[in-house]
């Protein structure tokens, strides 16, 4: 049978990760796309790092930092009274970190593609930096933002290694759909695993399909 609480948790995690990460990605990607500053190469490398590390390795390190004895875990505990390990808070934080490359890179490419003159024209028209961001940069970078959102969303739904390391497998608290699938397979409940796997495939398919639809609509608008 379908693990509905795992599905709800997965969707909740994916939506929150996407919504929280997008503004962060814009803030990080803009200077990376346009400004040359010392240490830019290092930041570029750090942004890509989560993509290159094995998820279990990343999860292992995060577990160390998130643990009540760890620097971050301790601070979070004193601040909120909640634990970062085996909790939704920790899962969300881990998910945000893991998805940085998926969110930042498409946004960075999109900002790089905006011609300098487009922004300069906006400034000369009297638009402040903030107005230029909303009325010029974000609309022009929209295809990149859309693919960042879809990639982050789908990737969060499917993340397994980091989630298992940091969150464990607590029903209703940290058991996401991909962990529930693993759980069902372990219990020889192949039909439930198959149903949930199919659901993940469908969600991913719809997400990628809507990305095509969104960006094509923008493309048509531009022609």
């Amino acid at each position, binding site marked *: 049978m379908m693990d509905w609480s795992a599905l709800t948790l997965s969707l909740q995690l994916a939506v929150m990760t996407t919504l929280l990460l997008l503004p962060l990605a814009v803030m990080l990607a803009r200077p990376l796309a346009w400004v040359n500053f010392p240490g830019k190469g290092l930041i570029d490398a750090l942004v890509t790092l989560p993509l290159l590390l094995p998820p279990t390795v990343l999860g292992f390190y995060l577990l160390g930092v998130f643990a009540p004895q760890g620097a971050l875990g301790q601070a979070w505990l004193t601040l909120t009274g909640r634990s970062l390990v085996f909790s939704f808070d920790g899962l969300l934080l881990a998910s945000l970190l893991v998805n940085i490359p998926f969110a930042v890179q498409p946004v960075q490419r999109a900002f790089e593609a905006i011609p300098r003159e487009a922004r300069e024209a906006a400034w000369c028209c009297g638009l402040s930096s903030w107005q230029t961001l909303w009325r010029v940069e974000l609309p022009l970078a929209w295809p990149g933002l859309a693919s960042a959102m879809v990639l982050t969303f789908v990737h969060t739904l499917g993340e397994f290694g980091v989630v298992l390391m940091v969150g464990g497998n607590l029903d209703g608290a940290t058991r996401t759909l991909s962990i529930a699938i693993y759980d069902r397979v372990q219990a020889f409940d192949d039909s439930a695993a198959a149903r949930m796997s199919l659901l993940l495939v469908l969600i991913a398919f719809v997400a990628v399909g809507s990305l095509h639809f969104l960006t094509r609509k923008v493309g048509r608008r531009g*022609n």
Partner: protein
Amino acid sequence: METDVTGGALEVELRQQTPIPLDCAFDCAPGELVALVGPSGSGKTTVLRCIAGLHRAQQGAIRCNGATWFDGQLSLPPQQRRVGFVFQNYSLLPHLSALDNVMLALGDVPPAERAATARNWLARVHLQGLDDRRPAQLSGGQQQRIALARALARAAGGGVLLMDEPFSAVDQVTRRKLREELARLRQELSIPIVLVTHDLDEARQLADRMVVLHRGQALQTGTPEDVLLRPVSPAVARLVGLSNLFAGTVGMDSGKPCLEWAGRRLAIAVPPGDTAAHDSCHHAPGSVVNWVIPPEGVLLHRPDRPSAGDAENPVTGTIIEALRMGSFTQLTLSIPGEPQPLVFQASSHTIMRNDLGPGRAASVTLLAGRIHLMPGD
């Protein structure tokens, strides 16, 4: 609804060593069009970007309509300067319609009036009925009209209009039309206009004054006629592509200054009231000078029918090239004792009738009044 386009003068003075050297100063009165000309890399665009606030020079001052935009320390951002900027590649925002692109520049017009004001500007550049089109659905000429309307909408009321090679990306027919349009539109504008161009024809047709830039330095500022007929130095003459640039010495001939050149003595004259040309006579006898004569100042003698005017500065040489260009033929004449050839034009009809071609000798008159002397380099 007519929008009043008036403003005060623009004063520019810029100095810097890096990233490219700048050393120039000029002003532009309301209603005046100043063209910045020079080869690529001469700093024309950088000067324009400094005025717009898109580049900050190390030293200098920029004032417009009584307000200080830049004084070496203070530098207002582009948003706080009233600058209508027409970029080389239009720089319309591709996601906005023609009307929205113009409305973008109308941030300080009450929202209810923006659409009407923007339509008015589009009408003034003769672009109507295309309000909802996006840039990609419009031709290059149409896009440049929108860019011009947007820049005017911003510059109106105390600003400046800056144009960076505005017609270079469109085809020749469109370019000619847009130039005419700008010349017409100019009569209604009383704001300073600064045009960057490498096209001297464009500068001559549109500009009240030209600033010749070379490596960031303003070598000469003057009317197109001044610059093209009376360059202050051989460097300017070369930069504006003048043919017939020679070296000579100032001499005296029966108490009057003359020009000694390639073993000849040429009479030089000062047309009455022409003070700029008068300066050329201040060169003391014996000083080495450069001199130019425009092709129009060289008259071909007709071997079949000598005339009285032939006595003025006659020069004989050998034709090395006769290039037919429609009804006129451009002749290149090799003069004994002068390494540089003399270039001038004559009617193709005359050339044919007298069977003039490469290898044939030809005599010409160098009109004394068209000879312009400069300090030698």
